[in-house]
């Protein structure tokens, strides 16, 4: 009896958590007649790819896709390049100011970024950086930087220092020891850290909305999706197809990271 109640509750939780995404996918595959009906169908009897075709053919689709990809990838790479030495300094070296730096990273990690929309807009305007993708790259670089430093510090600290010491004994320079001993061991950590940075930047909406205002050609996918009613009107099939396509890369990243996600290692790091 208790078992049955428990499993029913679990099914309820599962249904609530999965249904919205299921409904998005299934709407994207339904023919329009089946969407415009009073009694919704919960299974696509006649699946169609029409809505995906509409979404892909929508004006600017490939531009927005390319913009999102370019901004996200460049921000993540920049964050990695800057975070790696900083994380090494925090994990392995002793220097005065280290404590202060760590505190700054933690403050930055919990910074209320949405309170900075107005000043960043003004600064970008003064610097003639509005409506330019590199501006978004810089913003996303800094928003993902704290998390990247914290995570990489953990990964570097997990590499036994003795390995590096041995390399130094054998006559390697410090940089060479890092490159040849620590870096290869860090590869999985770098991989998962950058993928989580990717998700954060891919999803970002508030700054893209505030900084990319005039030119259609500078928009990213979240901005495009937020204005779906201007693009698709009441074509919910195409709207859901567009949302599905937008979610696809993130889902792939999560599948790659599944083991790490369930281990809770990245706790607190990523959220839209």
């Amino acid at each position, binding site marked *: 009896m208790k078992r049955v109640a428990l499993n029913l509750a679990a099914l309820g939780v599962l249904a609530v958590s999965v249904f919205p995404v299921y409904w998005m996918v299934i709407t994207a595959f339904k023919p329009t007649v089946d969407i415009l009906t009073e009694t919704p169908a919960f299974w696509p009897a006649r699946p169609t790819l029409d809505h995906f075709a509409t979404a892909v053919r929508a004006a600017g689709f490939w531009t927005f896709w390319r913009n999102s990809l370019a901004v996200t990838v460049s921000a993540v790479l920049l964050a990695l390049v800057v975070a790696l030495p900083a994380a090494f300094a925090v994990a392995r070296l002793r220097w005065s100011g280290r404590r202060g730096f760590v505190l700054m990273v933690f403050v930055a990690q919990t910074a209320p970024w949405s309170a900075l*929309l107005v000043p960043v807009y003004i600064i970008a305007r003064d610097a003639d950086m509005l409506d330019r993708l590199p501006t978004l790259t810089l913003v996303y670089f800094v928003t993902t930087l704290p998390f990247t430093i914290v995570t990489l510090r953990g990964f570097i600290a997990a590499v036994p220092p003795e390995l590096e010491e041995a390399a130094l004994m054998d006559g390697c320079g410090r940089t060479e020891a890092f490159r040849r001993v620590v870096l290869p061991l860090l590869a999985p950590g770098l991989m998962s850290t950058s993928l989580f940075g990717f998700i954060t930047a891919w999803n970002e909406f508030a700054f893209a909305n505030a900084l990319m205002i005039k030119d259609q050609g500078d928009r990213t996918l979240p901005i495009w999706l937020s204005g779906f009613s201007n693009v698709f009107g009441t074509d919910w099939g195409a709207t859901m197809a567009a949302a599905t396509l937008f979610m696809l890369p993130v889902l792939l990243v999560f599948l790659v990271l599944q083991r790490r996600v*369930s281990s809770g290692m990245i706790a607190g790091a990523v959220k839209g």
Partner: protein
Amino acid sequence: MARTLARTAARPALVIEARPRRKGALWPYLLVGPAVAGFACLLVYPLARSIVISFQHFRLGELIRGGADFAGLANYAEALGGPEFWAVVRRTFLWTAANVVVIMVIATAVALMLPRLGRRMRLAVMSGMVLTWATPVLAATTIFQWLFQSRLGVVNWLLVRLGFDSFRDYTWFADGGATFAILVALVVWQSVPFAVLTLYAGLTTIPGELYEAARIDGAGPWQVFGRVTFPILRPLFGLITSLEVIWVFTCFAQIWAISKGGPGGATATLPVYAFQIAQSLHRYDLGSAVSTLTVLMLLAVLVVHLRRMFREEGA
């Protein structure tokens, strides 16, 4: 997060003495230099600029021409003196409390349920959580607008089927209270997975012997939670609650994408309100003052958490 970091911090740092000290002294600063520069340019500077603007007369003219006059506390007086600001503050606290309480209650219940499930069911629920977590914010806002669509939305269909006939063609997004409720549902739906997975990870670290001992002593399930589970996981509960408070309090994307603070200002929380007055009224000075007050209020709410975090992680 706090725990892993506390652990890694406790490990003695490697000090490489192979090189002369004087030369090594500059190394760490060169390594963190770019990161510090990044934070300085895009976090500290905007924050400082925002505070300066909040003390200036800074509107459309100043934005275009540049240069702005010092205005003292005029913007703060204007914000604090009007009834609208306090309505927004009350709404923001209601928004934060409603979301965080519902998130924590549901997440705790689900996390406690997980270990009691069979292996397959547990895996299914956890995969569902990961799927929800992976849903991008803007995909989720679009989905919820479709779910709650007035004529074709599946929610109205279900409610009518269940006998609530007043929901036939009900336009959720025309009503302030209904939009607020949908936004709470959306943020809760998106936030629960993180809390569940983190709490569950914490639960698995509690040795089973403790539960057994409590049960032998005759403790009921509520007592086990109150006397064993909660006290052990108190730091984790504190951490998750604080993070949720930060995220919900400063939440912008969901609200802006669905309602832009409307209808009739019913969903304008502090970050949304600050952005509104800056963007549509060109009152950058007043918007900055509201932003500064927002950050101060958030700090006041979180002061306990921040003090603990600095103590634990400052090492």
